[in-house]
């Protein structure tokens, strides 16, 4: 075997074994034998390589070809194609999570490229069950060097020089700890390794014990020499049987070779090791509790001092370090402490191993230099969040740690920076969360964990955490009060300060850190009885309804459509949203992200069913909820977009006399002037607005509030309250030369002119700048107006684009190109055309939105010529005139209105505001919710004593029975009917309506999550 031509390294880490390494190994043995390659190819099973998500992993050297998710049936191809014929098997290559490119070599995978492996130096490279492989990788050389060339004091000094700090979480300098123990006089001292890796979400100690057990044995022997101990214990969790097996095997081998036992390296130094198995108690990670457990007692902590360095295990001086800390020691002794100290920051030296898990593409183990940015670990190494979902927070440090939100992705990871943010380094569990995690529920989870694991010895921890759990559980169940938050904040520091051990002292951290960064979510649970993540079941009607900003009772209308009762279904819809036709065409469908069918074959096509349902009614008059008798109060609504019209709708239903003032000649706002005809034909907008007018909403168009009429003049005319929803219709222009040249349009002006049917000259080649909906819409309109060469230019990458991916895909189907990481620097007129300077961008540091900030690449310039440039980089509000004419109303520096988006309240008691004006550009369904909030605010202002529930709060089960015992069967979702690219004309709707059969069948896929037993 010595001269094997090829080595096949097969990962036999715990996760890969679970994914099937054993059957792959057997298959390799068989196939290599069949192919007669037994003597040329060496098969080596190694410890964890780190990429647990995509195991089992095989790496083939000398080239380093990396195969992922290898199954036994793939092995034949690897042997026959790759090993025999030299043709790599590309279907098993790793695919880059964002670019989608296949990566052939292990050295080119970002996950490995940015790591620096010291503690994990051998994991994944050697067979952990063979001591000879460890020795061949310079194993036990450090022990030899220490015993034969160094005094114990030198060893301690070397560790001090390295700056190594305890990797178990607290970060105490290892060299100091060793020094304190070394100077103690005693007949017996001990070295203890803490492998009771209890932090949920951390598994580096397990991987080191499984993948490189000898490094820990060697380090413990070095430590024994340095402090004068001849006996060591490794305290391992009982949950890690494989780690125990491999460690025991390694201890036996080391004994056989004389590397443990008496007179090691003929130096006169004796050292031996024993394994002690834990028995499932988180508190045993605390050093004094752990030592009690080794002594055979209940694992309860005791007060310090005396510290273990003076009185430790069995009352003798003891060094207790964690597995990862020990795994660094052989490197420090061999390479020198100074070499180790070159890595990291001033106070945090070397590397740290993190266990990446949760909502992340490359979950697994990584070792990175201290000081690396948190975002770099999550995105560059971890590959980001699956399906490009937004990052919400990372939980670091387990039950003693905290959550760090997206604003701090640039934070360097050090022992000092993390506590500043309310987290701790901990043992290195790093759990990434997307918006599906409820932060209140997460705090509850950790408290539940702590109350179960609290040993009960001291009162603050035993009782205090129980009270905190009770309070947080109340909040999760929608029974919390604002006083509960104060109570939590009062209790937390008391528990921190008065608990006996680290468990209690850090137990409140998860609550404190979520309160610090996600207080708004706690408040939503308490005041709005709403869990935005859709986790807290007691606050949810159904996951889809919970996710819908307008709270539409989706399961109810699905049930009714399923029975062919289309008008009744529409009636349910009208309770929460008077725009079924519009939303049936343009709704972003937040609901389907939460649809429980996602766990099966895919979510319901909610929008398609809604669209079909809406198209079944020519008039809505008999479908609206009942209207109250007129109450004589006059209310003014400014802006006739979906927010303003929704507010007017509910106020009319409540009996108010409502007038909507619209600046444009026709009502509808963005529905009419921004969303193009091919997505939302004007007829449907007219139909739904006509319905509202018929119901009793008065709309006055051509009235520019603040110019001819002001809020003050309306007040004088008897209007008692106002809701301002004037939108954000002004285009932001970049500060570059040439934006006002003829042929340069802004997105909003371009879309509006096209919607009005005005003459908008468009040449053959058009450049659109921006990445949002209006940029995509403008590009597709430009093509419909005759442009042949349309390029959308966006300064970030596809995954950061704020628009719906389907819209981008459709634009591309129609022939439009999208260019990423590019921007324009100047526009000039040249020979009747536009000459544009293009700059290339790259993604730099993380900004507070959690996205990487694009920055220009220096010295790159490219000049291109276009007929037109459309700038659609964002919109701003333009409410200065409205504010000027309303006494008591405060504006903002960005030309908006100062308002609370949650309540609609402004600085003037009779004026409320909402929609894009307050939130910035959002979607139609968000605007409908803003309208609901506005209507409620106005009503509660005028009639504060009328305690009533509003139509959108009425959630009832439909009279459609649910068979709870029926088996759930997979049914393919209905496909969206689309026109082919060459059928698409200027004003023809691209998407079609599904048939009644299809709608009913699709509706019947609903799992009826509203129905609770």
């Amino acid at each position: 075997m010595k001269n094997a031509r090829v080595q096949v390294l097969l990962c036999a880490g715990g996760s890969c074994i679970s994914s099937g390494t054993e059957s792959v190994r057997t298959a390799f043995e068989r196939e290599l034998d069949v192919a007669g390659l037994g003597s040329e190819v060496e098969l080596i099973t190694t410890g964890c390589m780190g990429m647990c998500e995509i195991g089992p992993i095989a790496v083939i050297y000398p080239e380093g070809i990396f195969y992922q998710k290898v199954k036994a049936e793939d092995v034949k191809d690897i042997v026959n194609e790759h090993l025999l014929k030299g043709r790599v098997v590309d279907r098993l290559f790793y695919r880059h999570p964002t670019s989608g490119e296949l990566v052939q070599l292990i050295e080119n995978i970002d996950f490995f490229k940015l790591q620096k492996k010291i503690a994990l130096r051998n994991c994944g490279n050697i067979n952990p069950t063979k001591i000879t492989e460890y020795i061949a990788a310079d194993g036990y050389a450090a022990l030899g060097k220490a015993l034969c060339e160094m005094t114990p004091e030198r060893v301690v000094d070397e560790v001090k020089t390295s700056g190594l700090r305890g990797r178990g979480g607290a970060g105490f300098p290892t060299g100091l700890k060793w020094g304190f123990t070394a100077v103690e006089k005693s007949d017996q001292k001990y070295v203890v390794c803490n492998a009771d890796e209890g932090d949920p979400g951390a598994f580096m100690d397990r991987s080191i014990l499984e993948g490189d057990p000898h490094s820990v044995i060697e380090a413990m022997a070095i430590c024994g020499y340095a402090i004068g101990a001849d006996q060591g214990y490794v305290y391992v969790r009982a949950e890690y049987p494989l780690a125990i097996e491999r460690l025991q095997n390694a201890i036996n081998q080391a004994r056989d070779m004389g590397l443990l036992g008496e007179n090691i390296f003929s130096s006169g130094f004796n050292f031996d090791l024993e394994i002690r198995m834990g028995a499932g108690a988180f508190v045993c990670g605390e050093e004094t509790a752990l030592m009690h457990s080794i002594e055979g007692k209940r694992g309860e902590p005791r007060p310090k001092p005396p510290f273990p360095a003076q009185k430790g295990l069995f009352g003798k001086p003891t060094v207790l370090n964690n597995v990862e800390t020990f795994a660094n020691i052989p490197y420090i002794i061999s390479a020198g402490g100074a070499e180790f100290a070159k890595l990291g920051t001033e106070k945090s030296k070397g590397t740290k191993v993190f266990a990446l898990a949760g909502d992340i593409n490359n979950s697994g183990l990584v070792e990175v230099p201290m000081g690396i940015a948190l975002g770099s670990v999550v995105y560059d190494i971890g590959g980001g969040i699956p399906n490009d979902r937004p990052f919400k927070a990372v939980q670091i440090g387990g039950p003693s740690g905290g959550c760090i939100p997206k604003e701090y992705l640039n934070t360097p990871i050090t022992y000092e920076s993390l506590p500043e943010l309310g987290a701790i380094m901990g043992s290195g569990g790093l759990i990434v969360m997307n918006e599906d995690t409820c932060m209140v529920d997460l705090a509850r989870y950790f408290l539940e964990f702590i109350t179960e694991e609290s040993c009960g010895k001291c009162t603050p921890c035993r009782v205090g955490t129980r009270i905190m759990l009770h309070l947080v559980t109340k909040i999760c169940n929608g029974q919390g009060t604002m006083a509960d938050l104060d109570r939590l904040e009062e209790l937390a520091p008391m528990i921190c300060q008065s608990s006996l051990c680290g468990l209690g002292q850090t137990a409140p951290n998860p609550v404190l850190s979520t309160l610090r960064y996600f207080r708004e979510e706690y408040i939503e649970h308490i005041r709005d009885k709403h869990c935005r993540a859709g986790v807290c079941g007691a606050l949810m009607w159904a996951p889809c309804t919970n996710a819908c900003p307008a709270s539409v009772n989706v399961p109810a209308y699905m049930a009714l459509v399923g029975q062919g009762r289309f008008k009744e279904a529409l009636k349910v819809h009208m309770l929460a949203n008077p725009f079924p036709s519009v939303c049936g065409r343009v709704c972003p469908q937040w609901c389907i992200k939460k649809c429980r069918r996602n766990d099966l074959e895919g979510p319901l096509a909610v929008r398609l069913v809604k669209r079909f349902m809406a198209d079944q009614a020519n008039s809505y008059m008999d479908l609206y909820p009942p209207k109250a008798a007129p109450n004589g109060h006059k209310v003014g609504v400014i802006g006739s977009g979906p927010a303003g019209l929704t507010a007017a709708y509910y106020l009319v239903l409540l009996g108010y006399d409502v007038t909507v003032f619209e600046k444009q000649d026709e009502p509808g706002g963005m529905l009419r002037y921004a969303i193009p005809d091919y997505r939302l034909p004007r007829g449907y907008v007219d139909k739904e607005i006509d319905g509202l007018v018929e119901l009793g909403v008065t709309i006055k168009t051509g009235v520019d509030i603040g110019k001819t009429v002001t809020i003050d003049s309306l007040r004088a005319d008897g209007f008692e309250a106002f809701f301002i929803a004037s939108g954000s219709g002004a285009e932001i222009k970049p500060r570059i030369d040439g934006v006002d040249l003829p042929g340069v349009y802004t997105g909003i002006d371009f879309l509006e002119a096209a919607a009005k049917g005005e003459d908008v000259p468009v040449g053959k080649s058009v450049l659109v700048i921006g990445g949002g909906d209006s940029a995509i819409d403008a590009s597709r309109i430009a093509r419909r107006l005759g442009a042949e060469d349309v390029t959308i230019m966006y300064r970030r990458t596809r995954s950061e684009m704020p628009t719906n991916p389907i819209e981008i895909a459709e634009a591309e189907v129609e022939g439009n190109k999208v260019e990423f990481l590019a921007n324009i620097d100047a526009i000039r007129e040249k020979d009747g055309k536009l000459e544009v300077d293009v700059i290339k961008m790259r993604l730099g540091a993380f900004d507070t939105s959690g996205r990487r900030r694009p920055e220009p690449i220096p010295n790159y310039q490219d000049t291109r010529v276009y007929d037109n440039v459309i700038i659609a980089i964002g919109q701003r509000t333009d409410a200065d005139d409205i504010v000027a004419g309303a006494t008591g109303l405060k504006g903002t520096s960005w030309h908006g209105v100062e308002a609370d988006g949650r309540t609609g309240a402004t600085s003037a008691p009779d004026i409320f505001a909402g929609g894009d004006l307050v939130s910035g550009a959002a979607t139609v369904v968000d605007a409908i919710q803003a309208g609901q909030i506005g209507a409620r605010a106005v009503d509660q202002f005028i009639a504060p004593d009328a305690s009533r529930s509003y139509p959108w709060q009425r959630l009832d089960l439909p009279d459609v029975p649910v068979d709870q015992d029926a088996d759930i069967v997979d049914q393919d979702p209905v496909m969206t009917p689309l026109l082919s690219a060459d059928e698409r004309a200027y004003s023809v709707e691209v998407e079609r309506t599904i048939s009644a059969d299809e709608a009913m069948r699709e509706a019947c896929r609903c799992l009826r999550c509203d129905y609770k037993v």
Partner: protein
Amino acid sequence: MCQPTVDKKHCDNPLFKELDAFIAKQKPGRDALIPVLHKAQDIFGFLPVDVQEHVADALGLPVSEVYGVVTFYHYFSMQPRGRHTINVCLGTACYVRGAKKVCEALEDLLGVKMGETTEDRKYSLTTQRCFGACGLAPVVMIDDDVHGRVSAKKLKAILDQYE
């Protein structure tokens, strides 16, 4: 005493002989207690009171101390287990990736709550904190087999593998 016990006639029970042989190999001292209890649970499947009494006698410890240790650690159980132990991981990574849903589905499927054993003694259903297989979250461990990326939908097929 309503606690379950094993066969009272210790001396004839070969299981006790196996335990005694293990105890004889331990170094003297009370730190042998936890390793002995691990062995006893391996042999008997659980740690009923008479086994605890036997261990206390053999190690020269008060029964109260043995009982104190047994009840302190989650790993030790005084209740008999089913033929298969289903452990749902409730570590953080599993939790954020839907372990709660898996728990609910298992309870529905087996008709018992967490911590209980099915009537036919086939399965015991329990939860644990983190097996260290976070890369495969959510994870369910049945006996010594780790099943990764579990979903409510996959559970039935997984359980069908066990007799």
